[in-house]
C-alpha cells in the first residue's frame, strides 16, 4: 500500500489499477468482517489528475455508448444532451464546473470517456469524467469536512472528503452540482 500512498493513482497502467481495485475490494471486505460499522459506498472517478467520489445511491448507471448533442446558450459546463433509451439527459462536464486545471487536456477526449448517470430527487444528469474507478466502501463516519485550504471555487462542489488508500478523496456534493438550470427565467 505504501507505493500507492506515495505515488497516487496517476501514472498507473490499467493492469496496475486493476490490482489496486482487487486490493481495495479485499480491504473493503476485511473491514466488513471486523466490526459492524455503517458503511458508505462510493464510486471513485478521476477528473484530470485528481480522484473524486460519488455516493453510490446517486448513481443510476454508467453509460458508454453515447453521442452528445450540443445545445446553444447554456452554461459552458453543460456539454449538451444525450439520449439514454428514449430519456433525454443533460451532460455535465464536472471538470469545467469545478474549474479544474488540466481542463484542456480533459476536453480533448470528452467523447471517449464514460459518463456517470447521476440523479438527485430533482434531476438527472450524465456526469462526464475522465476515468471511472472502483466502488469502495468506507465507514459512514469517515467523511470529513473539506479542507479549509481547498480552492474556494471547488469547496462548494465537494461535501467532504474521505481518506482512502492513504489518499484524500473528495466526495462530490451532487445536490449542489445538479441545480436545475433556467428555472427562473
Amino acid at each position, binding site marked *: 500500500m505504501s507505493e500507492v500512498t506515495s505515488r497516487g493513482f496517476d501514472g498507473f497502467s490499467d493492469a496496475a489499477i486493476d490490482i489496486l481495485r482487487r486490493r481495495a475490494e479485499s480491504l473493503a471486505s476485511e473491514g466488513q468482517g471486523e466490526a459492524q460499522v455503517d458503511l458508505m459506498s462510493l464510486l471513485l472517478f478521476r477528473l484530470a489528475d485528481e480522484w473524486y467520489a460519488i455516493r453510490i445511491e446517486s448513481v443510476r448507471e454508467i453509460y458508454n455508448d453515447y453521442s452528445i448533442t*450540443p445545445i*446553444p446558450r447554456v452554461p459552458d459546463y*453543460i456539454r449538451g444532451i444525450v439520449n439514454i433509451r*428514449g430519456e*433525454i439527459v*443533460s451532460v455535465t462536464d464536472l471538470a469545467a464546473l469545478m474549474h479544474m486545471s488540466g481542463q484542456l487536456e480533459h476536453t480533448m477526449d470528452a467523447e471517449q470517456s464514460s459518463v456517470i448517470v447521476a440523479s438527485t430527487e430533482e434531476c*438527472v444528469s450524465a456526469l462526464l469524467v475522465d476515468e471511472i474507478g472502483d466502488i469502495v466502501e468506507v465507514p459512514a463516519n469517515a467523511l470529513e469536512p473539506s479542507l479549509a485550504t481547498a480552492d474556494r471555487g471547488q469547496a462548494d462542489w465537494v461535501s467532504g472528503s474521505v481518506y482512502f488508500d492513504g489518499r484524500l478523496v473528495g466526495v462530490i456534493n451532487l445536490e449542489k452540482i445538479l441545480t436545475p*438550470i433556467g428555472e427562473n427565467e
Partner: protein
Amino acid sequence: MVEFDRSAFIGKFQEEATEYLQRLNEGVIMLEGDPGNRELIDQMLRDAHTLKGSSRMVGLLEIADVAHKLEDIMVKVRDGAMVYTPDMSDGLFEALDMIVFLCENAGKPVAAEVDITDLIARLAVVSEGGKSDAPMPSSAPTLSSTAGAAESVSEAVPPDSVQAVREEKLQSKAQNTVRIRIAQVDHLLNLVSEVVISQIKAEQRVKDFRRMQGLVNEISQFWARMKAQYVSLLAERGDQLGDDAEFLGEQMADLKRLVVMTAKDYIDDTARTSTVVADLQEHSMSLRMLPVSTVFNAFPRAMRDLAHQYKKDVELVIEGGDTELDKKVLEEINDPLVHILRNAVDHGLEPAEERVGMGKPAAGTIHLAARQEGDHIVIEISDDGAGIDPEKVKAAAVRKGYITASEAKAMSDREAQYLIFETGFSTNAIITEISGRGVGMDVVREFVVKRLKGSLDVLSTPGEGTTFHLTIPLTLAIIRALMLRVGDRTFALPTASIEETLRVSASETIKVEGHEVIRRQRRTVPLVRLCDVLGIEGAPSDGGKIPIATVGFSGHRIGFIVDSLVGEQQIVIKNLGTHLRHVDNIAGVTVLGAGQVIPILNVPELMENGRRMAGMRVRESNGKKNEKSTEPKCILICEDSFTTRELERSIFEAAGYKVETATDGALGLAMLRDGLKVDAVVTDVQMPNMTGFQLTKAIKSDETLKHLPVTIVTSLERDEEKAEGIDAGADAYITKSVFNQDTLLETVERLIR
C-alpha cells in the same frame, strides 16, 4: 345565456375542497391543543378564504356563505379580537360538516334537509360575540342533527342505513371510472411516443425497400438483355449458355420474387401498423383530453359578476364547448381567458347609453368560441364594443417613447394594434384611454406564448368591436417541423410558424441601416443569421444561393438565414430533461429515427431575440434608457401568488429594474440575511410562513437591513390593517384595488431616491 352546466366544474371543486376540508378539520383539532399557533391560524384562514372563493366560482353560494363565516371567525382569532377556546370547535366542526354535506350534494336542493341559515346565524354569534367563554347557543340540539350531515336528512332513517346508501353510491361510481395519476398517464404517453418514433423509422425504411425493389428490377432487366445478347453471340459460335448462367438467371428471378414479396409484406404491415399506431397515439393522447367546457362553464357565472361589477349589461355566448384540449393546456388557459374577458367587459364594451346612442343594442355581446383547426385549437373572444383605435394607440406609444412619430406614420393599423402586446405597454397609464389599467395584454400573451406554445392575435375595427384569436396546439406532444442545418448542427423549426422557405442570391438582399432585408410580397422582411441568434458558428458562405426560412409570429416576420434546409417531417417533442428546465431559444428536443437528438427551436423566443438583432425591437420605456449608465436597481418581491408575482416582476423589469423574488416572507428574509443586495422590498401581506408585516418588522429591526424601503402591496383595505402595516415600519402601503403599474413604480422609485 348558455345553460350553465356546472357538473363538469363541480367535480374539480369537490376534489379541491376535500383537501382544504381535511386540512381545516385537522387544523381545528390542532388548534384546540395550541390555540395561539399563529401559523396554523393563518393557514386555516387562507384555506377558508380559498374555499369561499372557489365555491363562489362554481356557484355553490351556500358553501361560500358558510366559509365566509369561518373566515370571519379566523380573522378575529388571528387579530387577537378573540381567543380560540375548545368550545368554539363544535361550531367550526359543524360548519365544516355542513360544507362537506353541501359539497357532496352539490347542485341538489338541500334546503329542506339542513338549516343553513340557522348555522350561519349561530356562527355569526360566535364571530361577533367574541367572548371566549360564551357557549355555542343551541349547540346541543343542532349538533346531533347536523354533525353527521347526512343524519339530518331524515330522522326516521337510522344512521347505519344512511351510511350504507353512501357506500353503495361510492361503489357504483368506482365501477365506471378509474382514477389514474397524471404521472402514470404521462409515462404511458412517453412510451407511446417511443413507439411512434420506431414507427416513423419503419416508414422511412419503406423507402429503402422500394429502392431495393427498383434495383432488383433493373438488375434482372439488365440480366435479361445481357443474356439475350450472350445467347445470340454463343449461337453464332454454335455454343449454348452454360448451366451456371442458367442457374444464375433462376436465382436472380428467385431473389426478385423474394424482394418483391418481402417488400410488399413489409410495406403492407407498416401501413397497417401505421394506422394502429396513429390510433394508439390518438387514443392515448385523448386520455388527457377534456372538453373546453370544463373551463368555459365557469364563465357565465364569472361574467355575471363582472357585468355587475362594472355596471354593464353583457350577454355571453359560448360556442364549441365540446372541443377537446389537452388537460395540461386546459389548466393553463383559464387565467388568460379570464383576463381577456375582464378587459372586454371593462374596456371593450361601452356604457349602455353610449351604445344606444350609436344604434347598438344596450346589452353588449361577448362571443367565446372554440374550434379545432388541424392540429390547433382556435379560441376566439369577440366583443361588439368600441374596438381599439390604432391612432390612439400610436399617439400613446409615441408619447411614451415606444416608437418615433415617423415610425408611427409608417405603421399599419394592424401593426399598431399589436402594440398592446408590447412588454409593459398596456399596463401603462397610456393605455387607460384605450383599454384601461388592470392586467396587461403583454402578460396574457406571455402566458399563451411561453406556457402554451401558442399565439395571440388581435383584430379590431374601431366602433365595431375587438376579436382576440388564441391559437393553441392541440397537444404539446407531436408537431410537424422543418429540419435545418446551421454549421454542423441540425435544428427543427415548427412548420406551423413558417411562412415560406426560399433560396435567394446575395444580390437579392438589400442593406437598410446596416441590416439586411429582403422584399417579399411588397413587404420588407428583415434577415437574421440563425447562427448569430443561437450563438454558434455557421458554415462559411459558399457564394451560392442563401437558404432562408421566413417565420411569422404575432404580426412580425423575420427571415432566418440558415446553412441548408433539409426537409419536413413529423416529430415527437420531448423536453430537455430534468436538469435543463429552460434553455433560451430551445423548446425541446426530438429523437430522429436513427436515434439522433435534434433540438427544437422555440419560435416566440427566436422571434424576440431575432427582432432585437435586426434592430427592430421596439424601444424599451424611456426610464430604462435614462438609467442605462448606472447599475440597475434591484427589487426583492415577496409574494405567494404566482400571477401577482410575475405581474409585479414584469412591471419592474420593464422599467429596467433587476428583480429577485421570494414566495413567502421567511424566504425573502433569508435571502436578505444571506447578503442579497437589493434597493427596495415589495411584499404581499398574507403569505405562508411569514407575513408581510412580520417581514417588515424583521427588516426594520435588523441593523444591516433597516435602511431598505419596504412597500406593502395588499388586498387588505381596512384601516386597522393599514395601521398595522405602518406600525411594522413599512414605508408605503398600496392596496391591490387601486394598484396599477404607475402607482407601484412611482412609489418605489420615490423611496429609492
